[in-house]
C-alpha cells in the first residue's frame, strides 16, 4: 500500500460519497435518536458516541465537495476542514466504539443508514493512516499469512487429522467438483474445532459432497472491518480463485458474521463481477437441509435456550427466520430475547472491535447490554452462529461473573442429529 497521508484520506472519503450518503446527510435533523439505538451510548451515557457524530469527517467532506453552499463556504474560508488531528480524535469513535452493527440504521427516523457510512468513513481513516494498530495488524496478517490470527494451513491440517482420528469421519481437502466449499474462520480452527467436526457429521448424514480448499479456507475479511477495499478485494479474490479452481457450486460462509457480509454481499462488488457460485451461510444451508428432510434431530433439550443474532447475519444479512427453525430442532424450550432478529443488540465485538486492544475496556463495559438481555430471558444456554460473537460473549460473561454455556448452532444440530436413519429404516 502507498503511504498514508491526510490528502489521500480526504480523497478516499470523496470517492466514497454516493447518492445515498448525500441524501442521508441532507436529511439529518440532529434529533439524536441514533444514540438511543447504540450500546456504546446507552451503556456509557457519553454523547460523543452518538452514531451520526462519528461521521463528522465524512459529512464535512460531503458538504465542502458536493454541496453548493459548502463550496461557497470553502471559497470564503468559512468551512471547517478535516485535519489530521480531527481524524486522530475520531479513531476512537469510528473503530473503538462502533461495531457497524447497524442498529442505528434501523431506527433513524429519516432513514439514514449510518453503518453504511461508517464503513465508508473507515476507508478515509485507513488511507490517512488513522486505523488502530490492532486492526491493522490483523489485516496485515490476513494478507501476508492468510489469516488475521496468523493461522496457517498446517494448523488446519493438524486439526483435520485430529478430528479424523477422533471421529473416523473424513474431511475432504481440495476435492474438485464438490457441491459445497466450506470456509472457516481462524477462531473456529483454533478455538472451536467442534464446528468442523459437526459439519463433517451433518454432511455425511445428509449425503452432501463437500470440500475444504487448501488455498482458501479462511473466510474472515479484515479488509471490510478496517475499511480497506484493497485488502478486502485481495482476501475475497483468494476465495473466488479457490472456489473456481475446485469448480464448486456453492460456497459456505462459516459461523461468522462479517465473513458473510464480506463474501455474500461485498464479494462480487469487490472483484467487479458476479460470482459463478452461490454463497450461503451455514445456517441457511442447514435450514435448506431441514426443509428437504435431509437432517433430523432427536433428544431435544428441555432446558431454556436463547439465541443471539449476529448483527451481520440478521440485521445486515436477512438470516432471521432460519436460525429460529433450527433452534426448535434442538430445544423444546426456546426463549427469544426482548429485542431480537433485526433489532438485536450487538455483542460489542463486531466490526473489528474485538481485535482492537484500544477498545477492550469499553467493549467489556458496553457488553452489559448483552448480559442484561441474556439474563432477562432466564436462559440456561446461549446459542449463536458467529465465532467472534461467541468468544466476545464468553469473555464478557466471564468478566461479569455470569456462568452460562455459549454454543454454536451448527454444532448443536450435529449433537442432536439422527445418524444413519436410512440404514435404520432399511432394517426396520
Amino acid at each position, binding site marked *: 500500500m502507498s503511504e498514508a497521508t491526510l490528502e489521500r484520506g480526504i480523497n478516499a472519503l470523496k470517492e466514497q460519497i454516493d447518492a445515498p450518503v448525500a441524501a442521508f446527510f441532507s436529511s439529518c*435533523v440532529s434529533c439524536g435518536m441514533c444514540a438511543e439505538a447504540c450500546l456504546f*451510548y446507552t451503556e456509557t451515557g457519553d454523547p460523543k458516541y452518538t452514531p451520526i457524530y462519528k461521521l463528522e469527517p465524512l459529512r464535512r467532506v460531503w458538504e465542502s465537495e458536493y454541496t453548493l453552499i459548502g463550496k461557497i463556504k470553502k471559497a470564503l474560508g468559512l468551512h471547517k476542514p478535516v485535519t489530521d488531528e480531527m481524524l486522530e480524535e475520531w479513531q476512537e469513535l469510528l473503530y473503538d466504539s462502533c461495531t457497524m452493527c447497524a442498529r442505528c440504521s434501523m431506527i433513524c427516523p429519516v432513514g439514514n443508514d449510518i453503518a453504511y457510512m461508517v464503513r465508508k468513513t473507515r476507508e478515509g481513516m485507513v488511507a490517512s493512516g488513522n486505523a488502530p494498530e490492532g486492526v491493522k495488524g490483523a489485516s496485515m496478517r490476513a494478507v501476508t499469512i492468510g489469516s488475521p490470527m496468523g493461522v496457517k494451513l498446517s494448523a488446519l491440517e493438524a486439526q483435520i487429522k485430529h478430528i479424523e482420528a477422533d471421529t473416523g469421519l473424513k474431511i475432504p481437502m481440495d476435492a474438485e467438483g464438490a457441491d459445497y466449499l466450506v470456509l472457516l474462520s481462524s477462531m473456529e480452527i483454533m478455538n472451536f474445532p467442534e464446528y468442523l467436526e459437526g459439519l463433517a457429521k451433518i454432511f455425511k448424514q445428509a449425503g452432501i459432497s463437500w470440500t475444504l480448499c487448501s488455498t482458501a479456507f479462511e473466510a474472515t475479511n479484515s479488509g471490510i472491518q478496517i475499511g480497506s477495499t484493497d485488502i478486502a478485494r485481495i482476501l475475497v479474490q483468494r476465495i473466488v480463485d479457490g472456489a473456481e479452481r475446485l469448480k464448486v457450486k456453492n460456497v459456505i460462509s462459516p459461523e461468522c458474521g462479517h465473513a458473510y457480509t464480506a463474501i455474500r454481499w461485498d464479494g462480487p462488488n469487490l472483484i467487479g463481477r458476479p460470482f459463478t457460485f452461490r454463497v450461503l451461510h451455514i445456517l441457511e444451508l442447514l435450514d435448506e437441509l431441514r426443509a428437504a428432510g435431509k437432517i433430523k434431530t432427536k433428544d431435544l433439550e428441555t432446558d431454556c435456550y436463547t439465541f443471539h443474532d449476529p448483527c451481520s447475519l440478521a440485521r445486515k444479512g436477512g438470516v432471521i427466520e432460519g436460525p429460529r427453525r433450527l433452534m426448535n430442532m434442538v430445544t423444546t424450550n426456546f426463549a427469544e430475547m426482548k429485542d431480537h432478529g433485526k433489532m438485536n443488540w450487538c455483542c460489542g465485538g463486531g466490526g473489528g472491535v474485538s481485535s482492537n486492544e484500544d477498545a477492550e475496556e469499553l467493549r467489556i463495559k458496553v457488553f452489559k447490554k448483552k448480559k442484561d438481555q441474556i439474563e432477562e430471558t432466564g436462559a440456561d444456554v446461549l446459542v449463536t452462529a458467529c465465532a467472534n460473537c461467541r468468544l466476545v460473549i464468553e469473555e464478557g460473561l466471564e468478566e461479569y461473573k455470569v456462568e452460562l454455556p455459549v454454543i454454536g448452532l451448527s454444532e448443536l444440530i450435529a449433537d442432536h442429529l439422527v445418524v444413519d436413519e436410512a440404514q435404520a429404516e432399511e432394517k426396520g
Partner: protein
Amino acid sequence: MNEPMDFLIWTRSTAFDVAVTIFVIGVILRLFEIISLGRKQNLAEAKGTEFGPGMRTIFSRSVPDLGTFRRQPLTVVTGYMFHIGLFISLIMFVPHIELFRATFGFGWPGLPTPIVDAAAVLALIGLLAGLWHRIMNPVMQKITTFEDWLVWTLTFLPILTGYLAYHRMVDPYPLILGLHVLSVEALMIAFPFTKLMHTFTVFLSRWYNGAMNGRRGVES
C-alpha cells in the same frame, strides 16, 4: 398609502417572487446534486427486491421502534406535535388554500379555523418543547450546530407570526401579516441550503435505506 401597507404589498410581490424563485430552483438543484451522485451497480445476488421495500420504509419509519421510543419519548412526541400541527396549519387553513388557488388555479376544502388554530398551537408547543429538549439533552447538545438553531427559528417564526396575525394580536394588521409573509419567504430562501431540505430528501434517504436492506432480505 401607509408604510405597513407598502410593506405588506412588497412582501407579497417582489419579495415573494424572489423567494419562490430561489426556493424552486434551489430545491431542484439540491435534489439534482444528490441524485446525480448515483450508486454503484450492485453485483451481489439479491435476496429480495429494492423498490417495494424502499417504498415501505418511506412509511414505516414514521413509526418509531418501541424500545427506542421508550428511551427518548420527548423527541418523538415533540416531533409528531410539530409536524402534524405545521402540516394542518399550512395546508388546511382556508386563506393558504385560497392563495394556492389564486396562484395555481385549483384548491381543496380547508378545515374549520378553530381546528387550524389548535393545530398552530400544537406546532408552537411542539417546537418550544423541542427547543427546550435540544438545550437540555446531552446528545442533542453534542450534535447541534448553528444550522439547527437557524432552521428552528426559521420554522418557528412563520407559525408564530401567522398565529399573531390571525388573532389580530398586533396592530397594525398589515404589519404582522407582512411579517408573516416575510418570515415564510426567509424560510423558503434558506430551505434549499439547509437541513430544511429533509422535507424532500427524507423520501430519498428512507427509500435508499429500505431498498438497500430489502435487497439483503431485511425489512428496515
